[in-house]
Structure formats: C-alpha cells, structure tokens
C-alpha cells in the first residue's frame, strides 16, 4: 500500500507536468480574445447600397434588369457620376478612424496592402477620423463610383485620393475608361476601424465578399461583324455574324428614324407607287410631294382600273394586318400603315432607293455612326467567312480582340425586351424590325450588349427602304383563289356545311374502332386477331 501511494504521487506529478503548458496556453488565448474585442463594423439593414445621382436622386439598389449585373457597376453608372450610399453600423470605437478602402485583389486589412512600407494594392475611398462611439450607431457613407473603378489599374501611391475627391467630387469621366478589356472585374470594399498605428482593430466589414459579389464591367463587347439587311413589306430583317466572345450576352438594334417618327427623320424623297403599273417618268413629277404626304395627282402615275385600286387597298390593309400579327422574332413597335396611301390606291415609295447599302454595304448616318465613346481594341478578326450558294456571307464567327462602348441615343433602340436587350443570346444573329413605312429610307446598326448592360461599338450602318411584297397567299388570292378564312371558313365561302365534318369522320372512325375492341375484350376474345368465318 505504502509503495502504491508513492506510485500515485508520481503519477500525479507526471500529469501536472504534461498539462501545465496547455493550461498556460489556454490562459493566454483567453487574454488575447479579450484584447481583440474592439470596434465592430457591419452592414446596417439592407446590404446593398442605394445609387444616388449627383442631383440627389435615389435610384434604388439598381437601375438594370435583374439579369444584367444587377448589383454591380457598368459604364453608365460611372458616366452618370453615381454614388453608392452605404449604411454602416459601428460600435466599440475609441479614437479609431473609420476608413473605407477599395481593391480588386481582395484583402485590405493588412497594412502592407494599404501602402504601409509597401506598394499599395488598395486605395482609400473615405475616412472619418477619431471616432469615439462605444455604443452602436449607424453611419451613412456615400462612395463615388468613379473613385471605386478609376484606380483599379494604377493604384495611387500613397493610396489616398485627395480630400475633394473623397468628399464626393470624385475622379473625372476618364475614370470610367480604365478597364483594358471587356472582362468584368470583381471588386471589394472594406469598411474598418484603423488605429493610429495603421493596424485594423476589431471586426471589419467587407462588401463584395462571398454572398455579395460586386462586379465592375466598364467595357462592352466587340463589334458585331457583317451587318446587312433584308427588305420586306413594312419590315427589315437585320442579319449579322454572331459574336463568339465570352462577354456578349445579346444585341441591341438601332434604327434611324425610329418607327413612328419618320416625319422628323431623313427627309426621303418619295414618288408614287401603284400596283400593276410601271413607275414612269410621269411619276417623277409626283416626287415633288414631300415624304409621307398624300398626293392628289397619283392617278397620273399609272393606269389603274377599279380592280387594281381594290387590290391596292387590300394590299395596303394586308401590310397593316401583317404588321399587327404575331409570330415575328420581335416586333419593334406598334404597327403603322404601309406607307402613305393616296386616295386612289397608290403609295409613296422611294424613287430609286437612295443610298441603299445592299447586303453587307455601309451607309452614313449621323445618329448611328461615330458613337463609339470607348474603343478598347475593337478590331475583331473575322474567321474564314463562309458563303452560301447564293453568294451571301453567312455566319463564320469572329475572334474578338477587345471591346468598347457606344452611346447611340436610346430613342433609336428598337425592340427592347424585359431582359434589357433587343436580341437575347450571343449566338443569335438576326432580328426583324416591323412597323416600318414602305418607301422611307431607314438606317440600321447593331451593337453587342454584355451581361452588365454595356453597349459595345456599333456595327457598320446599313440602309434601305421597305417595299410592298406579295407573299404566296397574296399571289394566290390575287390569281383568283377563293380558299381561306380560317378553320371554320366554309360559311364564309358561302357553303354552310358544318366545317368540322372531316374531323368528325376521323374521330368517329377511331371511336368506332375502340368501342369494337372493348367489346371484344369484354367477350374474352382479346389476344389474337379476329377471323372472318
């Protein structure tokens, strides 16, 4: 027993020796935790900042559709000199400065990242020195978008913007053109308490971290190549080679003059067109009538009999009908009449198709041309054009080498859908603009749009004028064909026979067969083909 007591005491000593360092470390840890409990910075309420224009207008958390980099920044945000209004909660401050820093590489809590004895990778956006606020309080901080995006490729050293810049004046418009390509850049904004020794105290708040991605995209996609147009009755079918870059999310199609505003447009000279009558020199005399006007001298432009007049007015209504019908890849506007009709069934139409570009040609239009505001290397390279049997160049794709931005007036944009672009999808290279007026020359250009809503440089401008056409149905009816009118059209044709007779025959035969089969099954004869005896 006595010997056993000695063993027990020795065992206790070993245990104490083993655990002593751990206990000591535990005490140190506890002490450290107590020391680091200090200022806390966090988001207050809604995480995402509101967007404030220079005139004080609050545009909410975004001005774009949900699918277009809704919470990030694009060129338009920067060009508008927008501010982001953060609502930040702070507590536990005892003389620390509340500083706001931005970075496109990540962490700004290390002093070295903020330029302390090092080349900075962060730049300061805002500073509120000597904050003494042990209790919780909310601080509203406006950060200029240009200050966020401007220094991303050349971080200032020292990394503090000037006082006037930080107080709202911000960097100039040049800050909006600092991204070298169309590749979007993730950004991070740090809100933190910095003590006089430049160390970060307590718990900072990072905006742009996981859960709150914050992407800046200031450059639009490359130029769509090979734009051309096909002409129809009150419509254009615009085609281009689809981009193959990683930035393009869709396309915007622009037109001048916008449908419905032709009178204020290009002032095209028109002459009268009469179906089944050759436009002769006499029609030139009527070209003095101004664009869109109604001429009373139209009867001189061709010999028209009553049926011609009837056909013409019908054709005109056809065009109107077709304009209002559904089924196109995207109607740009409400229908408009097919040109300016004269009282005798003739229409105004362009004399010789002034400045038409034809397939792949170009036109000059002041509204659609020369609107590139940023060119980040838009010389996309066409990859091996392919031609169809008719010699038309078809989609071969482009190899993008850069992007850019254009600034065509929104009034010339057609067919914007809920997703914010005219044509959704990078691989789509066609769009139908309807609701145009026959005989009026329109200029059209296409620009690619990225996932942030940046509109890239516009394509070559093409121009032409819509003209009346005869589709199969018109030719058939004009030739004397009497069919049509819908699936219940027999009454309209003057034969009040039930129009569903044919369908009834088919359904009746089927039902008869099924009934007979059921009878056979009930009779226990199912399982083999019946036999006539």
């Amino acid at each position, binding site marked *: 027993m006595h010997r056993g007591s000695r063993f027990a005491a020795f065992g206790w000593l070993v245990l104490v020796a083993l655990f002593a360092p751990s206990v000591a470390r535990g005490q140190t840890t506890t002490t450290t935790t107590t020391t680091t409990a200090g200022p806390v910075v966090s988001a207050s309420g809604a995480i995402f900042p509101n967007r404030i224009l220079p005139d004080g207008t609050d545009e909410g958390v975004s001005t774009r559709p949900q699918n277009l980099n809704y919470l990030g920044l694009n060129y338009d945000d920067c060009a508008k000199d927008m501010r982001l209004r953060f609502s930040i909660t702070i507590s536990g401050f005892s003389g620390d400065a509340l500083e706001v820093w931005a970075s496109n590489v990540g962490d700004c809590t290390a002093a070295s990242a903020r330029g302390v004895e090092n080349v900075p990778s962060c730049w300061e956006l805002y500073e509120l020195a000597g904050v003494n606020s042990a209790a919780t309080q909310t601080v509203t901080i406006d950060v200029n978008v240009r200050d966020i995006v401007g220094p991303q490729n050349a971080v200032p050293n020292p990394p503090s913007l000037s006082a006037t810049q930080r107080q709202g004046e911000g960097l100039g418009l040049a800050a909006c053109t600092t991204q070298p390509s169309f590749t979007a850049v993730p950004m991070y904004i740090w809100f933190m308490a910095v003590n006089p020794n430049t160390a970060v105290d307590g718990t900072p708040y990072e905006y742009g971290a996981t859960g709150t991605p914050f992407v800046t995209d200031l450059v639009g996609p490359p130029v769509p190549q090979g734009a051309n147009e096909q002409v129809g009755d009150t419509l254009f079918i615009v085609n281009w080679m689809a981009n193959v870059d990683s930035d393009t999310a869709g396309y915007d199609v622009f037109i001048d003059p916008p449908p419905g505003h032709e009178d204020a447009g290009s002032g095209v000279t028109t002459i009268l*067109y009469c179906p089944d009558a050759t436009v002769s020199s006499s029609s030139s005399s009527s070209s003095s009538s101004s664009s869109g006007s109604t001429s009373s001298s139209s009867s001189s432009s061709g010999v028209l009999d009553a049926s011609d007049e009837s056909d013409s007015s*019908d054709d005109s209504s056809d065009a109107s009908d077709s304009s209002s019908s559904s*089924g196109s890849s995207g109607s740009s506007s409400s229908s408009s009449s097919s040109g300016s009709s004269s009282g005798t069934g003739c229409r105004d139409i362009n004399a010789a198709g002034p400045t038409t570009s034809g397939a792949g040609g170009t036109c000059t239009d002041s509204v659609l041309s020369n609107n590139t505001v940023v060119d980040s290397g838009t010389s996309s390279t066409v990859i091996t054009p392919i031609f169809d049997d008719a010699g038309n160049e078809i989609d071969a794709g482009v190899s993008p080498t850069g992007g850019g931005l254009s600034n065509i007036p929104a009034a010339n944009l057609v067919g914007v859908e809920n997703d914010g672009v005219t044509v959704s999808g990078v691989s789509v290279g066609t769009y139908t603009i309807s609701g145009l007026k026959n005989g009026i020359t329109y200029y059209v250009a296409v620009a690619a749009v990225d996932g942030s809503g940046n509109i890239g440089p516009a394509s070559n401008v093409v121009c032409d004028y819509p*003209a009346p*056409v005869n589709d199969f*149905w018109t030719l058939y009816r004009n030739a004397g064909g009497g069919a*049509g009118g819908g699936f219940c059209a027999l009454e*309209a044709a003057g034969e009040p*026979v039930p129009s569903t007779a044919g369908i009834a025959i088919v359904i009746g035969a089927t039902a008869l067969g099924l009934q007979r089969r059921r009878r056979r099954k009930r009779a226990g004869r199912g399982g083999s*083909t019946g036999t006539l005896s």
Partner: protein
Amino acid sequence: MRLHAPCVGAAFAGVLIVLAPVVARAQEGAGALASRHSEYQSPQYFALELRFSPYTPDIDSDPALGGKTPYATVFGTSPQVLIAMELDWQAVRIPHVGTLGPGVGIGYTPGISGNAQFQQEHNGTLVSGETTTLQIFPVYAVAVLRADVLWRELHVPFVPYAKLGPAVGFWRASNTLGTSHAQGVVGLGHSYGSQVAFGLGFNLNVIDQYAARNFDETLGVNSTYIFGEWSRTDLDGLWFQKDPLRVGSTYWSFGLAFEF
C-alpha cells in the same frame, strides 16, 4: 421525268437477284424457324407506319386560278418533303387473304418556304427578304387491307396492301410576321377530299428471324417492313366544299412499318 420501261425492268430484275438468296434462305429455314417463331409471337393488333414522301401540292391545278401558278412562282417546282405516320388497327383477319381494319394517318410538310416577291423591282431584284411559307397537315382515315397471305402461308416476304378513305388537309400560309392576310381573308383553312394508296411491304423478319423473335419478345413487334407506296391525296373539296386550297398531291412514299 418518265422512266423508260427497260430501266424499270432492269431495276426490278436487280432487286429480285438481290433478294432471291434471302428469300431462299427464309424458305429453307421456314420449316423450323418460322414455326418456332409462330410459337413465340405475341398477339398482333396494330400496324404503325413512318414514312417520307416527296410532295408537291396540287394548288396550281385549281381552275379558279386561270392558269396562274402562285405556288410554283414562290416555292418553285421541286417537291417538298412530307413526313407522315399512320396507325392501323388490324381488326379482322380474312382467311387466306390478310388483315382488314381502319387506320388514321397524319402528315406534315415542314419545308415549304420561299421568298415573297416585291411588287416592283427593288435594288435590281424582285426577290424580297421576307419569308413566305405554307404548312400542310394532311389527315386521313382509311380502311386498310394487308394481304399478308404470301408471308404467312408461303413465306414470301412481300405484303401488298391497299387503303381507301376520306381525308382532310389543314393548312396555313404565313409570312415573316405571322399568318398571311390578303383581300381581308386570313391564310388559314382546311380542304376535304379522299385518300387512296397502294403499296408493297418487304418483311424484314426474313433477313434475321432470331433478331425478329427477340424484337417480338422484348417489344412485342411481330413484323418489321420497309415499304414503298403510291398515294393519291385528292383534297379538292369533294362535292360539298367550295374553293378549297388544293393541298393534296399524288406521290410515292417510302418508310418503315411495324406490326405489333
């Protein structure tokens, strides 16, 4: 284009030469294999046909058009493709003849499309960029007689058949913006008529009876055929419809048929 009789004869002879050994082998094994197959074959009620046909609607033959050819003007004279399927119920078996029963079929012409024409020359052409299309859905109900006696009793793998019944063709004329309108009339409607067809099926079971038996045991398909068929879909409105769009045609079809 007419085929010369000698050419047709030579082609037919060629087919016979190719098929003769196959038929001979089938007959050799018929005693054992065919009887074994018949032991295992599942009940047979229906036939399903999948077919493809060159199709040119008779629209321009309408006397009301006065010789004008709106269809050919826009869509050309080359045949379009008709894709169709037909389901037959082999309701009764006539001893030493074959099966008789009703069938229904539906087809679709997916590719009748062309460019609308400018009313006057535009940039040196009359061809506009606007698309004009005609969709046709021929539907018919027919009585079908399949004379499979040659196959069932003589083990000759040819099955002639005939079909006859009423038909209706649903159609829609459209352009780039949707359904066409002209003279206030919408380009949408249907035309009544009749369907008659004669065809010859070649039973593929003769090529590999083991595979045929497996096909029957796993999916219940008793026989598989390739077939050629002459059809006349005459959608002229019969006696009661005024001014139908004559979307019917006379055409050859080729396809696969399954009896199950």
